[in-house]
């Protein structure tokens, strides 16, 4: 398994997989198969996939540790960037069809409606993470600072779930489902951090040397 994951083709395959939701939307759009409310269909689909990719990204660290497959770290950046890709599409459906590209109206909406406020926050927080996702930026910022910055994904994921929870009318099952997963993924990190501190008081010093293993 690790050898397959370590091969250069693994990334190519994953990349193509990550494009499937987008390809499916394009296919549906070309075949007029987006349902009665195409804008809403694309909006909901890209929103869903943003949350899913955030969850995938946040799963990498727990999974590679629990399953002892360190090679999985190779895929984290791509998954995170796909979360950003889908949130950009999601945002486009909002600023375009919903707000008619009126930035002033959008800004008023962002301030007034709490589910928009929190969703917009989730989106904005991902922008610097996408921008600094390259090896060059890790070097420039230094591992520790880079890592600190990229913890913003925790906030972004939580905001994304709240955004979803606040916009549904009465059926909260799906937002709660995402909420439960994000809670587990963040709680694991918290538990892991506690355990490490207790086991080795110098854990913080170790993390300075090997940033990727703590994330």
């Amino acid at each position: 398994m690790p050898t397959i994951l370590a091969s250069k083709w693994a990334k190519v395959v994953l990349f193509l997989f990550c494009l499937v939701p987008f390809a499916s939307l394009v296919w549906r759009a070309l075949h007029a198969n987006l349902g009665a409310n195409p804008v809403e269909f694309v909006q909901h689909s890209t929103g869903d996939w943003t949350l899913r990719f955030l969850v995938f990204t946040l799963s990498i660290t727990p999974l590679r540790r629990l399953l002892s497959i360190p090679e999985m770290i190779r895929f984290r950046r791509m998954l995170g960037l796909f979360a950003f890709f889908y949130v950009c599409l999601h945002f486009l459906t909002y600023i375009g069809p919903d707000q008619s590209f009126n930035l002033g109206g959008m800004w008023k909406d962002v301030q007034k409606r709490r589910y928009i406020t929190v969703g917009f926050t989730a989106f904005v927080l991902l922008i610097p993470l996408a921008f600094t996702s390259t090896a060059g930026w890790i070097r420039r910022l230094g591992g520790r600072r880079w890592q600190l910055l990229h913890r913003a994904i925790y906030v972004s994921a939580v905001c994304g779930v709240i955004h979803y929870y606040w916009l549904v009318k009465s059926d909260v099952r799906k937002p709660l489902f995402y909420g439960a997963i994000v809670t587990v993924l963040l709680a694991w990190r918290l538990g892991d951090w506690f355990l490490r501190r207790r086991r080795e008081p110098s854990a913080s010093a170790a993390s300075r040397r090997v940033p990727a293993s703590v994330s």
Partner: protein
Amino acid sequence: MFGRQAPELTYCDVTPKSVYFDRRKFLRGMGLAGVAAVGGKSLLDLISPSITGHATTKLTDLVKSQFTTDEKQTPYNDVTHYNNFYEFGTAKGDPAKNAQNFRTSPWTVSVEGEVNKPRKFSMEEILKLAPLEERIYRHRCVEAWSIVVPWIGFSFNVLAKLVEPAPKAQFVAFESYYDPKQMPESRGTGLDYPYVEGLRLDEALHPLALLCVGMYGETLPNQDGAPVRMVLPWKYGFKSIKSLVKIRFTQKQPPTTWNRSASNEYGFYSNVNPNVDHPRWSQAKERRLGEIFRRNTLMFNGYADQVASLYNGMDLRKYY
């Protein structure tokens, strides 16, 4: 269609030919007749869905109505595959999927409460209360999407007159059919069932308030509230109760489902009003199905000339 007690009845009167030659309906009639003969309800479950499923029937001799918009009608397929009917699930496509086997025959609507002549109406009787009118109405959902639908029915006040509301009657309470066995998807949707709605008496008696038995020239499909529903074009869609079984004239304002679920978001009146936002989203604009950008929402959904006087002197921010 075919009542168990009277299998020869119903829409045959309206469209003899189409029913007579409709293969699926004929088969279903046979199926139900068989059930009636055996007297066992469980047999219904053995009959395949395509036979028990409620298919629509053509309604003819429709009278043109003055209450009709000439706006472009929303395609039938959109109205039947994108709507809310939480008893059958909360996704827009759920009702079309999950209401297929909903049994709507026999059907009776019970009218009770503060009336001189309480009584039950069979579906067959309701269809004959008045000439059926086609009314093309705008329909605005509280979620800010809208459609234009050619409904079929007649003013609710026709039925109200027959039962003679007593002087005490101030409100009308409506109740939907609810059967958790037929509507398993209703669990977990966050609402209490049966679905209840209500109107002030003068609202209910307004000629625009439509007792609706069909759309697009046919009987109502299950997912759109078969066999009989209300349509109140100047109010948000959820006020237009579906699959109606009980009407109660009352002295006090009756509880309504969405109001009970979130009273700060859904008022008793719930008139379409672009100036009063839902606490979580704007009601100033709406997306007409089939369009990309949003259009302005009209006061009382464009029916202000007809209904605004019902609310003279009322603070519509308070009575949202």
